[in-house]
């Protein structure tokens, strides 16, 4: 059996295991796992534009928030059910990405990162200032409990499956991208955008498509999250902390790889939970320290690190420092 076949079998096994997990785990653990799957999806979606194309977006949470608010507003104000609202949320995310991408994808490097951050923060402020539509600072509540619900509240198990399916879809999309011409185009753009343009790649179309895919997947996650939370607030749904969290997951796991974001999400969430229950006062501090250490020693992410370690049969920890230091 080749390495790749083993990998596929193992991936399939863990998928089957994840699918059966709800039959023997408790409600709140399902909630935690669901949240891990959601973050993994967000990291995977970011991976498309940030990892493959190299356009480090620091505002992807804007799609998360918009997806959530579209669902909330449609369900609360227009009395729609969840599934049609979810569809609209995804379309909204894609369209918003394309529209925003028009001006913003022309920028590079830090400028692009800051522009996307500005878009996210600005959108949050706009949502805050439309209280009649979105509830503004008071938040908005989806009618999910009791008789007024347009779609009855599904419960922890159902949300676990929703997030799992979304993660599988996101990973499948990234896997397909990584093996396609589109993926090569993105990687080329990452390495040298001008050269990529020179060899005939339509860089604008590729970047926009990547951004749109990223936006749609993120919006879907936001939509499901909003339904799960029932009441959502702008500060939480458009929080820059969420962006940084899933970027850290993608980077620590390994950008530009298929398994990286998933690995990063699982590892970081467990780490976060562990720290929170054992170091009640200092967990954020320790988390910050860990990020620093990870960035210094593992900048290419754990997946590539492990690959290199196996290939060279040693731990190339200090190599990174030597390679990247001034």
């Amino acid at each position, binding site marked *: 059996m080749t390495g790749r076949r083993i990998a596929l079998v193992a991936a399939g096994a863990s998928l089957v295991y994840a699918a059966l997990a709800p039959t023997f785990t408790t409600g709140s653990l399902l909630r935690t796992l669901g949240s891990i799957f959601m973050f993994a999806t967000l990291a995977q979606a970011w991976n498309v534009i*940030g990892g493959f194309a*190299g356009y*480090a977006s*620091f505002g992807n949470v804007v799609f998360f928030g918009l997806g959530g608010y579209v669902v909330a507003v449609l369900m609360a104000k227009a009395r729609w059910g969840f599934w049609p609202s979810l569809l609209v949320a995804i379309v909204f995310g894609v369209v918003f990405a394309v529209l925003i991408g028009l*001006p*913003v994808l*022309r*920028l590079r*490097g*830090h*400028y692009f*990162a*800051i*522009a996307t*951050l*500005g*878009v996210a*923060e*600005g959108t949050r*402020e*706009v949502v*805050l*200032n439309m209280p009649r539509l979105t509830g503004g600072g008071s938040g908005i509540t989806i009618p999910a409990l009791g008789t007024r619900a347009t779609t009855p509240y599904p419960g922890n198990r159902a949300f676990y499956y929703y997030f799992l399916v979304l993660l599988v879809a996101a990973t499948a999309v990234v896997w397909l991208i990584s093996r396609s011409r589109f993926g090569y185009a993105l990687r080329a753009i990452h390495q040298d955008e001008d050269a990529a343009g020179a060899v005939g790649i339509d860089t604008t179309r590729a970047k926009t498509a990547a951004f749109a895919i990223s936006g749609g997947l993120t919006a879907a996650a936001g939509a499901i999250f909003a339904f799960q939370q029932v009441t959502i607030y702008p500060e939480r749904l458009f929080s*820059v902390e969420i962006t*940084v969290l899933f*970027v*850290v997951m993608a*980077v620590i796991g390994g950008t530009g790889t298929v398994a990286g974001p998933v690995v990063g999400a699982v590892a970081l969430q467990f780490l976060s939970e562990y720290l929170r229950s054992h170091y009640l*006062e*200092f967990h*954020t*501090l320790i*988390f*910050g*320290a*860990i*990020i*620093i250490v990870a*960035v*210094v020693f593992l*900048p290419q992410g754990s997946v590539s690190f492990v690959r290199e370690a196996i290939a060279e049969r040693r731990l190339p920890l200090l190599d*990174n*420092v030597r*390679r*990247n*230091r*001034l």
Partner: protein
Amino acid sequence: MAQFLQATVYGLLQGSLYALVAVGFSLVWGVMNIVNLAHGAFVIMGAYVALEANLTFGLDPLIGMLIAAMALFVFGYLVQRLLINLVVNAPIWMTLLLTFGLELFCVNVLIAVATGDYRSIATSYAARGFSMGSVRVPYGRLISFVLAITLTAALAAFMNRTRTGQAIRATGMDRVTARLMGINVRNIYAVTFGIAAALAAACGALIGMVGTFSPPGAGALTLRSFVIAVLGGLGNMWGALAGGLLLGAVEAWGGQYLSGTLVNAISFGVLILVLIVRPTGLLGRPFYEARVEV
């Protein structure tokens, strides 16, 4: 009319403080292509140093400002030399993440040591002011305005007239050649970062004097510095000053004639507008990305 004048004057005074915060941030970004997400944390740290100096030794915040600047210079130098220098050649989001981790760390150390309470440095004169017609000009903010301009001018002079300043500019233009010319780039980077931290700390002392501060407020300060640095053109000191003043005025007008809750949306709108229309900033010139101009 009186309201417009008051809003404008107050907005400019407020803007000068924003500008001072952004000058250091812009310097680091322009010279070293490092976006320091912990910059706001340095401001707050400086504010606490000045507060301690005031509470323990009774020192006026204008003196505490000097102490804070010196302390944070050392801190900034060490952070750059021992930590950030390690990832300078890595992909861009590495420094972003590193400084983000640094911010988390510093802010939470502050919370652990000083609690998350809102603090302020009490002076007898800061809130008082004089009236020019119907416009009130508070002393504290006037002093900050004067200091902001003075410090920016001092920094510009430093950049132009001293060897270290010129070494910094040279490194910002072309690091490889600077090295060939015998400039110790590791040291210069650390000095630059230290200067930025010192300016941030000085600003923190001033903010403590005229307003309130608390560790969770660091993020908002950093975010504003982004906007102003981009507005003014990266690495451009006077640009940052102009950008800060402009932003302060625009926010004041926005708050006056639109709803007060739109203030933040306005600053981001300005940011995006500038990035789309003129990404090199109001006063920046379209040369290479990392270039210091004074």
